[in-house]
């Protein structure tokens, strides 16, 4: 497989076309939520991500109810957002933070790290992107937005 095909995995091309979580969803009443907008100055791509948390008892690790987003960008950034929107619901805040960290480590590895599919699931398909330094920002765009949105979901 060429490096190009290794980047544009089936999973990625699929997600780029039928996008999960696209369209910002209004949070259910009483649910916590946070939003973040990210911008890629090189190409002008942008994304807004909203994270909705299910109500949780004081001190407990809240669970992600829904992750929705809206944006415009390349196949890598759109697919990455879609994959995340599928993965996040049901995760605790801590788990999602860990997932984002693992995704970042993978992407920054310049192809030197094999993805842990157990942790990453579909997101493991982005391993090929890590060889294309200029595209790492694309893949991270929605994920950085999610990280900040989660933070703001308080």
């Amino acid at each position, binding site marked *: 497989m060429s490096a190009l095909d290794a980047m*544009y995995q089936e999973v990625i*091309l699929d997600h780029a076309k039928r996008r999960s979580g696209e369209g910002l969803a209004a949070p259910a009443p009483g649910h916590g939520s946070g939003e973040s907008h990210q911008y890629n100055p090189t*190409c*002008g*791509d942008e994304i807004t991500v909203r994270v909705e948390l299910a109500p949780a008892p004081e001190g407990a690790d809240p669970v992600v109810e829904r992750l929705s987003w809206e944006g415009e*960008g*390349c*196949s*890598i950034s759109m697919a990455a957002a879609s994959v995340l929107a599928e993965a996040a619901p049901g995760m605790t805040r801590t788990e999602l933070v860990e997932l984002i960290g693992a995704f970042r480590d993978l992407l920054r590895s310049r192809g030197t790290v094999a993805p842990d599919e157990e942790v990453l699931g579909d997101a493991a398909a982005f391993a090929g992107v890590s060889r294309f330094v200029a595209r790492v920002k694309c893949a991270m765009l929605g994920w950085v937005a999610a990280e900040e949105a989660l933070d703001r979901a308080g």
Partner: protein
Amino acid sequence: MLPLTDPEVRALREDFPLLTGTPAVYLDSGATSQKPLAVLDAERDFYVHRNAAVHRGAHALAVEATDAYEEARRIVAGFVGGTERELVWTSNATEAINLLAYSFSNASAGRGDQEAERFRLGPGDEIVTTELEHHANLIPWQELAARTGATLRWIPVDDDGALDLGAAAEVIGERTRVVAFSHVSNVTGAITDVETLVGLARAAGALSVLDACQSVPHLPVDLPALGVDFAVFSGHKMLGPTGIGALWGRAELLDAMPPFLTGGSMITKVTMESARYLPAPTRFEAGTQRVAQAVALAEAVRYLQAIGMERVAAHEHELGQRLAAGLAELEGIRLIGPAPGAERMGLAAVDVAGVHAHDVGQVLDAAGVAVRVGHHCAQPLHRALGLTATTRASAYLYNTTEDVDRFLAELAGVRTYFRVAG
């Protein structure tokens, strides 16, 4: 004038060491050009035989360095129809525009003598630019307006990205003090009707500033004949090294402008309280200068002159037409700028239906074709076109018609790769 033939271009290409490696096809000269050996040798030769601080030393080496530096100025100034009194070295075109904007701003803050009066801006004054400008010819004017209270106005583009000259006549008026515009758009490849805009600026008593970044490398340009007051261009786009560009300006204007960067070598008498300044161009060259780069840029100019700018222009005209015609035949491709047959430089930007420019560029890169993707530092123009990013192929004298065909062939496959076309 005859365009260069492919065999001629292939022979030329031997002078460019990078072009004998990967990528196979370099079509990103609008961003930066590759360099011939003669330019690399000239820069090295300076360091090996003549390196010294200029305009400062009395020893023989310093004299030789100064001679080399000033000879380079004469050569580059002459290339655009000017004299050495009229050419100021800068880091790049961006800095050259900032030099103007800051000098005007300093004049507005009361710096400079009586002569500087004419560069003073304030509330009620207007600076005019256009909607297709590179950010380098937009943001410095925004900031100048913000610092002085002047108003920034602009000549709009139509849906195809062409300047609306009818609107220009309304935008430029008696409040206009500066009109800044590109000679050639780095996105559409269209050549601006300089005569009309200079005419409007003159009638309004405004100064004209030409962004010649995409013309000086590609066309014979005679700045005094164009009638502009100032012009800027960058060395790295015209076979020269990085780190050097130029401001050309009419000598009487340059001499009347307050300094921009201050420090050593641009002064006469300095006390702790104040300093007096040399005339232009030295007034604008503070500190130790980019001497090796000036010498190498002069060598780049010699290289271009040996081929002849008329031939370069004819060659690029041919490539531009081939690009436009080829693109018009591809399905799902929107060509930005002049239609096939209409005058354009050797570059073309496109939108590929259903595929983001980043993805287009990636597939081309994997096929050994280097192009530029993004907004090309022209966000407002892209917004006017209803796009965020485009894919741009930009040629130079070392590109063959085969390079263009290779680009077209690879581009034709992109929509299939991303399954937006059969």
